[in-house]
């Protein structure tokens, strides 16, 4: 159903919350007199005027218009996990929710101990020497690597000389993007027959201008590059740093360690692999780890353990900050609790199950007419996800993956992840079952794909016009790219689509 936009709700004079006029009012006089006249607000912001009940009811209703994990969401590359509610309850404790980052460290010992404890866990999982949690997401951790790389180049007098970062077309876009934003030229290696760039291509790309390699493994197609150890050796021989984007860590937890492969640095996504909530995209944490050699460049402050407690210190050659304060430590708290709940065996088993579940799912999906897999010629089991293509379906029925995804939601199954740009295969999609979803859920999911593909052959219009059973009908998104029509705010919408009714109402 169509819940009104909040801007249309309420009525003049309604109040949702009040703030008592301070008893100190008398002492200082009216607030307006304490503000520079030029800077006083002239007209009130045009916000809704609602009661608390109506406000809550509105957002409860909106929450009910979110399918997501209330159904089945195998959102690949995101490793959907259950978020233990005990962690959420802990997060609301005043000892977590109501602490200020600038408190004296003596009053934050519990938090710093959690951070330090968790760092030890990530060290064990990666072989790295230090971790920072300042980066507010995976992309921000990639950026942290770019910053650390610059710091290292500066310290070693190579800044400006080594100005290229090498990556692969299957690396997450954040790798080339943060490299570019950090002032580096990006060299992107294409895939070759094995499903990954060749050693030769890498050799051709690296040299005295190479600052770093930024690479993931396995990639989002579920293909593991078996030459990664050699890659790292080559990059380091060429004088560059090797950074492991561990976005797809779920399939290899406990199985490989970045340091063992020779990497100088790596990153983990705590909101993905370590059970932090997705929240529709953060708050997140990109845990960035590196060797002792690079640790002196890490963002400040770092948590250290001393005889008299945990301290906050500035690394010798710290690159400064990538974000204010210490990061989304409330997510670190959750990740630590998750890791303690799992233990070493649990973590290992989770990666076992995620790879098992993916290969089980693959069997079901490839049995469906219209579904193929990327690099079908590469045999053997994939890792924790597989990339599929509906290219055949599209050719045979005209129905693409977006339409299939829309129709799937009619069956209570949320859309899967498709693929990052550029699409190397037509009509791609990338489900990931992880260790969360049960065999029955996977079976249901596959059955829905089968059903929708069958519908595409039998009744393409039904699929094309989907969804029919969602909160709203299909959105017409073309206007969102048109300056005359897009509207990211209600006031823009009123101006463009309702002839400035906004302005008038406001005045």
């Amino acid at each position, binding site marked *: 159903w169509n819940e009104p936009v909040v801007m249309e709700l309420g009525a003049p004079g309604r109040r949702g919350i009040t703030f008592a006029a301070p008893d100190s009012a008398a002492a200082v006089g009216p607030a307006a007199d304490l*503000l520079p006249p*030029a800077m006083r607000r002239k007209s009130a912001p045009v916000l809704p005027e609602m009661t608390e009940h109506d406000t809550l009811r509105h957002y409860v209703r909106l929450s009910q218009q979110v399918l997501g994990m209330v159904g089945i969401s195998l959102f690949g590359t995101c490793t959907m996990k259950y978020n233990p509610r005990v962690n959420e309850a802990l997060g609301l404790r005043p000892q977590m929710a109501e602490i200020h980052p*600038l408190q*004296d460290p003596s009053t934050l010992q519990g938090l710093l101990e959690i951070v330090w404890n968790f760092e030890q866990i990530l060290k064990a999982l990666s072989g790295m020497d230090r971790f920072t949690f300042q980066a507010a997401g995976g*992309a921000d951790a990639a950026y942290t690597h770019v910053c650390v790389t610059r710091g290292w180049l500066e310290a070693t007098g190579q800044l400006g000389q080594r100005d290229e970062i090498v990556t692969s077309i299957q690396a997450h876009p954040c790798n080339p993007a943060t490299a570019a934003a950090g002032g580096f030229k990006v060299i992107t290696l294409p895939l070759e027959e094995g499903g990954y760039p060749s050693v030769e291509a890498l050799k051709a790309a690296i040299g005295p201008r190479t600052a770093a390699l930024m690479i993931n493994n396995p990639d989002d197609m579920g293909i593991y590059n078996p030459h990664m150890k050699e890659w790292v050796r080559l990059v380091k021989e060429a004088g560059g740093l090797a950074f492991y984007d561990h976005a797809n860590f779920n399939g290899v937890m406990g199985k490989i360690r970045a340091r063992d492969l020779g990497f100088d640095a790596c990153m983990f996504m705590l909101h993905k692999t370590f059970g932090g909530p997705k929240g529709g995209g953060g*708050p997140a944490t990109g845990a960035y780890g590196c060797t002792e050699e690079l640790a002196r460049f890490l963002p400040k402050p770092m948590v250290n353990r001393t005889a008299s407690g945990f301290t906050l210190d500035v690394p010798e050659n710290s690159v400064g900050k990538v974000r204010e304060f210490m990061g989304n430590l409330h997510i670190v708290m959750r990740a630590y609790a998750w890791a303690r709940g799992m233990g070493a065996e649990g973590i290992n088993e989770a990666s076992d199950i995620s790879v098992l579940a993916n290969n089980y799912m693959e069997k079901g999906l490839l049995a469906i007419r219209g579904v193929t897999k990327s690099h079908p010629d590469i045999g053997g089991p994939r890792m924790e996800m597989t990339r599929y293509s509906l290219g055949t379906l599209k050719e045979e029925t005209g129905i693409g993956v977006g339409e299939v995804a829309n129709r799937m939601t009619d069956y209570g199954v949320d859309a899967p992840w498709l693929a990052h740009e550029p699409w190397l295969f037509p009509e791609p999609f990338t489900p990931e079952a992880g260790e969360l979803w049960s065999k029955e859920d996977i079976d249901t999911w596959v059955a829905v794909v089968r059903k929708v593909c069958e519908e595409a052959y039998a009744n393409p219009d039904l699929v094309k016009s989907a*969804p029919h059973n969602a909160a709203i*009908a299909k959105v017409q998104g073309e206007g969102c*790219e048109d300056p005359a029509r897009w509207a990211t705010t209600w006031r823009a919408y009123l101006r463009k689509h309702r002839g400035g009714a906004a302005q008038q109402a406001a005045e």
Partner: protein
Amino acid sequence: MANATPEAKAAMLRAIGAPDIESLFAQIPAEHRFRGKLDLPPALASEVALKRHMLGLLQKNADCEQNLSFLGAGIWQHHVPAIVDEVVGRTEFLTSVWGTPMSDHGRNQAWFEFCSMLGELVGMEFVGLPVYSWGCAIGNAVRMASRLNGRREVLVPAGMDPERLDVLRQYCEPKGSHGHIAVVPVAWEKASGFLDLDDLKAKLSDKTAGVYIENPGSFGVIEARAAEIGKLARARGAEFIVGVDPISLGVLAPPGDYGADIVVGTIQTLGAHMMAGGGAGGFLASRDEERYAREYPTLNISIAPTDKPGEHGFALSLAHQSSYGMREEGKDWTGNSVYLTTIGCAAYMALLGPQGFREVGEVIVQRSHHAAKTLAGIKGLRIGFPCGFFKEFVVNFDGAGKTVAQVNDALRAQGIFGGRDLSADFPALGQSALYAVTEVHTAEDIARLAAALQEIVA
């Protein structure tokens, strides 16, 4: 883990036709495999044990509910209405990532509402979904400005909060790196704390990509000549970027009214807990002009029609210009941000409404001025910039012959967290601290602080 049972594993292996799970890892070369035992602490598999362990750790923190805190400087203790926690904690919003505009309609609408209400507060029509933090938003805005006019210098207040300044510096890269943008501080007027216009004029040039100011500034001072600063900037072809704390905008003029081209700020004050600095996000807003819109690195949500007449939906707008669409050619980069926080912020803004924002702004202004006035009455204490501040103000202890560190240690012993020590970052201010007073503070709290300080400096 649902499939951890032997039955489930066996059934799946059977379907795959694999002998064991190990065989599924065939892609990983043996010499890549870690075969040791992970050196992790023992599992606390039972929730009761885990909770006890975590509570034991958390209880080693001293929080700002049990203690009385006057810390601010980038993270502030505001009242978080209970429904905000309720909404943000709803399973539907909390656990999932996202779906299609139809399957995820409720979340998209909440995001659009967040942008809409924030747009009303700041007086701008184009608002992106938030970025990691206020500091990051400044970095993005300065880079936007530089891309817009091709210049490579940004003027910022010399009194700018060092955390945000450090982040901005990172976004502007070290000197010598490709694409460096110089960050040039502009002095403040000693008495008022306002930006020194002479210094500004001296530093403004054809190289100036943008002029950044904050309102209120990092010392809490309301920059009364913001419009003039904007005019000066625009006159030299620079973008005028204004950073705000949106909780002030029920009583302070929206930056759109005094000529801001790009507005940035924090969203933490819109209903996010302090969480040691976690969860706070930053935002970017501007006029809805294509020139600006085409430079946003954020995800943007536009309202749009659906196939059903009269129905509205929401979809991504200008996604292709992000790094998701163009990789290294995209605008800066985009990734996970603080999108859950925004839903709480939306509930917060809807709950307050125009009257709530006015009220909370007035309470903060009055209470902080009352606090400053009270502290000014203590011998040895001096208020740095005593007029026209919002929420924060500078207290100088030089006259008391004590360092801020000494004062804060003594306060802490009484369960009071004193203001942020400015002495290291701003030596010119002597032994000064930045005190934040909000709607959570009562007159008794201020009296308690005053009594403690009185005793400490006596």
